[in-house]
C-alpha cells in the first residue's frame, strides 16, 4: 500500500488558495492549511474596530476557508520575523510599500520549515502566472521556489501545467493532468472552477489581503519611519496606522483622532502609552498624541482636536489633556477652522 502523502497549503482566505487546496485534496492527498500573521493582514482588523463596519461579516476568511474545505488550519505569528522582510526587502517594493516577492519567498520558506518539522511531503500555493505583477509572473516563480528553499516541493496546482514538473508530479503523488493551466488576471477560470466544486461563497478582496498594497496605509508607514528617523516598528504602531485620522502638524508629533465610537474605544486602550486629549465642554473624539510635543505644541494639538468636536464653531472649548501617568489638566482653546488645517498635515 502506498504511503499517504501530506501537503500543507498556504491559505490566504481568498479563492485561489482555496481552489488550489481543493484540487490537490481531490487527488487523495491529506491537506492541512497554514496562514501567516504578519501584522499587515487586512482580515477583520478595521472591521473589528469600526462601529460603522458592524454590518460586514467579521469572519476570518482563512479560518472560514479551512472549515469549508474540512481541513485543519495552523495560524502562525510571524510579526517579529516579518520586520526583516518589510524593512529591507532584497527584491524591493511594489507600487507601494508591498514587498510581495520577498514576502512570498519568506512564507514559502516558513512553510518549508513546517513540513520538515511535521513530516509533510510538499507545499501548495494558489499562485497563478500573471495574476500579480510583482510576485506571480513566470520569471518570478522559480525565484520563489529556489530562494525559499522549497525547490521542487512547491506545487502550484492552479498553473502547474505551465511550469516545469515538480517532485509531487514526477513521483506520481499527484496526477499532473488533473492540475490546471490558468494564466492572467481574469477571474473567470477560477469562478468556473469554484462552481464546479460547488463553492459559491468566497472572498475576493480587490487590493489583496495585505494593507501594504494600500496607497494610504503605505503613506502612513513611510511617515512613521521618517518621523522616527529609522525603518522600524512595533505591532502597536502598525495597528494604529489602520485607525483614525492621522494629522501631523510638525515633525515631532502627530495626532491620531478617532472617527467614530468604535475607534474611540480602541484608542482608549492606548491612554497609558500616549498623551491623550478629548473635549469636555462639547461632545468630541478621543485623540492620541504620538511623539514628543512641547507645551506649545499641545495647544496646537488641542485646537486641532477641537475642530473635530461638536464645539468646532464655538469661540472656545475645554480640552482635557491626560498624560501617560494619568495626570490631567484642561486647556481652553479656540478650535482651528477646517480651512486653517493645511492639506499637508493629513497623513
Amino acid at each position, binding site marked *: 500500500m502506498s504511503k499517504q502523502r501530506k501537503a500543507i497549503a498556504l491559505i490566504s482566505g481568498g479563492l485561489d488558495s482555496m481552489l488550489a487546496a481543493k484540487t490537490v485534496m481531490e487527488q487523495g492527498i491529506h491537506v492541512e492549511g497554514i496562514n501567516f500573521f504578519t501584522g499587515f493582514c487586512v482580515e477583520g482588523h478595521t*472591521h473589528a474596530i469600526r462601529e460603522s463596519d458592524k454590518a460586514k461579516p467579521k469572519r*476570518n476568511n482563512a*479560518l472560514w476557508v*479551512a*472549515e469549508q474545505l474540512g481541513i485543519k*488550519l495552523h*495560524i502562525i505569528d510571524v510579526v517579529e520575523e516579518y520586520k526583516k522582510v518589510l524593512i529591507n526587502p532584497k527584491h524591493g517594493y511594489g507600487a507601494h510599500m508591498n514587498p510581495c516577492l520577498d514576502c512570498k519567498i519568506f512564507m514559502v520558506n516558513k512553510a518549508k520549515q513546517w513540513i520538515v518539522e511535521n513530516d509533510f511531503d510538499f507545499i501548495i500555493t494558489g499562485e497563478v502566472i500573471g495574476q500579480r505583477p510583482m510576485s506571480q509572473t513566470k520569471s518570478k516563480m522559480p525565484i520563489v521556489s529556489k530562494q525559499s528553499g522549497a525547490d521542487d516541493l512547491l506545487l502550484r496546482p492552479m498553473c502547474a501545467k505551465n511550469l516545469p514538473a515538480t517532485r509531487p508530479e514526477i513521483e506520481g503523488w499527484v496526477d499532473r493532468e488533473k492540475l490546471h493551466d490558468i494564466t492572467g488576471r481574469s477571474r473567470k477560470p477560477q469562478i468556473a472552477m469554484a462552481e464546479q466544486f460547488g463553492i459559491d461563497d468566497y472572498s475576493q478582496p480587490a487590493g489583496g489581503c495585505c494593507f501594504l498594497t494600500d496607497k494610504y496605509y503605505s503613506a502612513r508607514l513611510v511617515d512613521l519611519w521618517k518621523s522616527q528617523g529609522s525603518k522600524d516598528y512595533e505591532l502597536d504602531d502598525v495597528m494604529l496606522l489602520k485607525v483614525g485620522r492621522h494629522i501631523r502638524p510638525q515633525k515631532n508629533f502627530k495626532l491620531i483622532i478617532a472617527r467614530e465610537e468604535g475607534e474611540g*474605544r480602541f484608542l482608549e*486602550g492606548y491612554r497609558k502609552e500616549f498623551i491623550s486629549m478629548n473635549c469636555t465642554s462639547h461632545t468630541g473624539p478621543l485623540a492620541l498624541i504620538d511623539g514628543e510635543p512641547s507645551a506649545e505644541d499641545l495647544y496646537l494639538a488641542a485646537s486641532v482636536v477641537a475642530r473635530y468636536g461638536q464645539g468646532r464653531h464655538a469661540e472656545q472649548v475645554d480640552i482635557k489633556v491626560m498624560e501617560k501617568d494619568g495626570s490631567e489638566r484642561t486647556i481652553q482653546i479656540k478650535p482651528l477652522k477646517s480651512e486653517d488645517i493645511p492639506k499637508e498635515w493629513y497623513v
Partner: protein
Amino acid sequence: MIKETLNARRLLCPLPVIRTQDKVKQLKAGDQLEVICTDPGVMQDIPTWCRINGHKVLETKSCNHEYSITLEVGV
C-alpha cells in the same frame, strides 16, 4: 481536568485565535480554557477554530464590549 483563563483583551483577530491555539497546545484533552477578548470577531473565529481542530465550545458570553469563550480541549 484544569481550567485556565487567557486574557486576549485589546488583541485583534487573528491574534486571539493564535494565542488560544498556543495555549491549547500546553493543555490536555478535557481541560477547559476561558478566553476573554474585546474584538467581537472572536465570537465567530474561535468557535470556527475549535470546530476545525476538534475542540468543543462550552459557553460564549458578551457583556460591555467584552467577549468570553469557554472551550474544552479535544483529543
